[in-house]
């Protein structure tokens, strides 16, 4: 197991060391133990490059996508899991089908649609396309989660006089926290890392997200590896923090229903 951990961690370590190594020594004799460490690349990143802008953009887009898809997705998922209505299975299948299209095949049509409605280079212009993969993910995850909740609890709430909405708010949602957290985290991570849509629908640096900004660092004649690696470290920070804080919840959310608790 330690071998696997090592294989995974070495590139990360290498990135960290390289991002702290001065530019002129980056291509010198590589050494596992770093020599002089400097914050030059990070300074350049936030001063010369204004890396705050892509970070802010990414936070806004990923945050909004997560918020919307979890709110709307949990409502859809509850209906699909608990209510009886015609065409339920078909709806679920369609939701899944939407997420099956390869992203590259819908970039051009989406571009045309967004241009038509004037949403290119705007936050909604990224959030709405992101919902196309975030919603199916959320819905499928939460339908499974809601189905394995004991129906007795909701019936007890009905008997206690709570209506459907009160029951969802006071009983279903609180006990669904692990499922909701899992859905939120996965959505956030996908949106944070998403590249193709962000590259295609953001026109100028003021709307670039982190992955796009990093990709466009390379100039015509040189690749600023130091800054790219520093940016990669910065981009990984929210992801790492989220995973560390929420890993227990993710695991329990992903395995919920698989094993009867």
């Amino acid at each position: 197991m330690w071998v696997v951990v090592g294989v995974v961690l070495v590139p990360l370590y290498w990135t960290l060391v390289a991002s702290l190594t001065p530019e002129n020594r980056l291509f010198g004799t590589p050494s596992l133990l770093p020599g002089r460490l400097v914050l030059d690349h990070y300074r350049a990143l936030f001063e010369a490059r204004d890396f705050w802008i892509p970070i802010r953009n990414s936070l806004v887009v990923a945050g909004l996508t997560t918020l919307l898809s979890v709110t709307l997705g949990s409502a859809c998922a509850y209906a699909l899991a608990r209510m009886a209505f015609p065409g339920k299975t078909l709806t679920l299948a369609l939701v899944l089908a939407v997420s099956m299209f390869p992203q590259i095949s819908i970039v051009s049509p989406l571009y045309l649609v967004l241009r038509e409605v004037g949403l290119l280079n705007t936050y909604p212009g990224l959030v709405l396309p992101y919902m196309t993969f975030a919603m199916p993910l959320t819905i499928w995850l939460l339908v499974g989660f809601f189905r394995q909740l004991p129906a007795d609890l909701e019936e007890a709430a009905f008997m206690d006089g709570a209506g459907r909405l009160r029951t969802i708010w006071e009983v279903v949602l609180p006990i669904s926290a692990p499922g909701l957290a899992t859905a939120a985290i996965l959505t956030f991570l996908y949106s944070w890392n998403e590249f193709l849509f962000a590259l295609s629908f953001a026109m100028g640096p003021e709307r670039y997200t982190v992955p796009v900004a990093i990709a466009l660092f390379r100039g015509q004649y040189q690749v600023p590896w130091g800054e790219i690696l520093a940016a990669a470290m910065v981009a990984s920070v929210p992801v790492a923090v989220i995973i560390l804080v929420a890993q227990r919840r993710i695991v329990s959310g992903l395995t919920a229903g698989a094993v009867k608790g």
Partner: protein
Amino acid sequence: MAGISLRQAGKRFPKGQVAVENLSLDIADGELLVLVGPSGSGKSTVLRLIAGLEAPSSGRIFIDGEDVTDLPPQQRDLAMVFQNYALYPHKSVRENLAFGLRMRGMAPTAIDERVSRVAAALGIDTLLDRRPAELSGGQRQRVALGRAIVREPRAFLLDEPLSNLDPLLRTGTRAELALLHRRLSATMVYVTHDQEEAMTLGTRIAVMNQGRLEQVGAPLELYERPATVFVARFVGAPAMNLWSGDRGGQPVTFGVRPHDISVVAPGSGEVDGVVEVVEPLGPQTVVHLAVPGRDELLRVMVSGTQRVNAGDCVGLRWPNDRVHVFDANGGRRA
């Protein structure tokens, strides 16, 4: 408190299986009616129809004379105790008890007062700030009862409330339930598959089988005059001995309770049998005997002091007026 009536109620599930068929039943105000039957007999569905958690496919349901068939469970003002208790896991015991009162818009001070009073009466007042996960099975059961009682509903619906308790706790809680029923003089509908629970608790018992009512009556009435073969077999432990025969040329089923048979010298009773199994219970002993010409072992209840050993050949005698006779087809009492 209120009376409950079902009129020709039926429940057919979308896939076609019939859970309850044409069932009419009147539950009097203040009565503890036990719905008893094997699993799949439809007893839980009847409870859910009364609760409003299922809509009947046919027939009407009345509470206190008011037709509630189309009312949702929220507006029927009934309380239900679920088999697995269904306590809200994320709420404290106090919040579990208060939830129903809060949903009905009661003032917070009045809620506090009522929750404390009920908690004290049930001996759970020291548990009020715990979560259900921190309670033992018996304590959870009390909280579930408390959540129903605190509401002061029109009637209580109990779905196998004792089946998750260990046997010792079960008999204790059963007695408490009976006491509670007397004290509250509340209308209660109690579902169980355990005929002993039904006999000891019920003011009246309704025996269900395959979605139909077999018989409704006081416990001893069911025991002494079972209306059908099914009731005869289901009520009373050990179960009644049944065998087919004919009376006046008509095929019938005869039944005699193990308690009504006495062991006598071989040849001096109705039949002779060979003792196969002896089960001493203390005050009494259950003896299983093989009788020639019968597939089933005959069950006999004898006094615990009577010495019977496996392999003994004995005679069996029963008074003629203790023989139950049922139609061979249909199983109705003849």
